[in-house]
């Protein structure tokens, strides 16, 4: 278990500030979209909140699942690293906990997670991880000023166009995911209040 700087890789819950859809009131379309979005979505306050707009959720989930889970291209652990760095940069404690766990499961180690929690700008156990982390921060913080200089380090560690696009997608979609998690509700967990309240900053 890692707990640093207000972030954790422990499992957290999330509470909606709106009224999540009640399953008893769900239309056939809403149930269908919930089931295609995530295996646990029928009991997830997050998905039940988004299910108020089922077609918007359907296309979001299709994009998200293709970006994070499709085979080939950028290794999945590296997509999770990008997602985790963006989530820390945006201060999304809930998303960070989920994607720290995914990274640990895929990479079978947690050293990079500790580094990202400490300082994402300096994080990475290899030159390739450092290039991924720095690119994720640049896309998150200054999309208007991205240029060739931000791509060169990725090419320098051997990434081709398809891998760079995979990373760009993973990083960009956490600009989407973090904003929903942070603005429609809040993380809850037994020990959250022990940590520095980054999400209240």
């Amino acid at each position: 278990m890692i707990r640093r700087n207000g972030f954790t890789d422990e499992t957290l819950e999330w509470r909606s500030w709106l009224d999540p859809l009640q399953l008893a009131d769900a239309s056939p379309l809403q149930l269908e979209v919930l089931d295609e979005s995530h295996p646990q979505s029928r009991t997830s306050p997050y998905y039940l909140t988004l299910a108020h707009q089922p077609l918007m959720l359907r296309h979001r989930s299709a994009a998200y699942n293709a970006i994070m889970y499709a085979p080939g291209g950028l290794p999945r652990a590296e997509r999770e690293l990008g997602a985790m760095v963006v989530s820390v940069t945006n201060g999304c404690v809930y998303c960070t906990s989920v994607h720290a766990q995914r990274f640990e499961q895929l990479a079978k180690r947690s050293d990079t997670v500790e580094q990202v929690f400490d300082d994402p700008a300096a994080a990475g156990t290899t030159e390739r991880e450092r290039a991924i982390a720095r690119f994720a921060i640049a896309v998150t913080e200054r999309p208007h000023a991205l240029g060739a200089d931000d791509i060169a380090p990725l090419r320098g560690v051997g990434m081709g166009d398809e891998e760079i696009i995979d990373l760009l997608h993973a990083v960009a979609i956490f600009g989407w995911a973090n904003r929903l998690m942070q603005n429609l509700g809040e993380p809850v967990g037994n020990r959250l209040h022990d940590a520095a309240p980054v999400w209240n900053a």
Partner: protein
Amino acid sequence: MPLVDVSEQDVIDRAAGLAPGDPLHAARRFRAKVVEATQASHDALLQEPVDGLSTADRLRVAEHVCKIAGAASLARHYRAQLDGAAGRDAMPSPALPAMLHFAATLTTDPRRGDRAALEALGRAGLGDAAIVALAQLIAFLSYQLRVVAGLRAMRASRAEVGP
């Protein structure tokens, strides 16, 4: 209501300056499902009927977000859509100032989102389903404008190193 017909062209390709035959246009199609779901998200977020949230007001929010974020080509896209949208001459919703405020906060610093900001939208007259649609639109724009910016950076990088 149909918007200006952009069905022949993908919004991200157009905003990033990619045309069929470009190497990056082809590289994007390595993830054809992402391309398709991204365009379908754009269409649903703007066009799905939502009580209390007109397409014209959604386009106003989208143009505002893209301007704030410095995404000029996307801001032009949403402006052109608004100029061609049915209902553009109707009065904007009285909730539009609250929507634009929420959009600006969410776009520039997602950490500043709090329960009070969401409740202000409710007080301005938006129901939960409309708030979900608005939040999805604004969050999607943060994704879309980053994909466009990244693709433009990749184009610049290819121009430097040659094809």
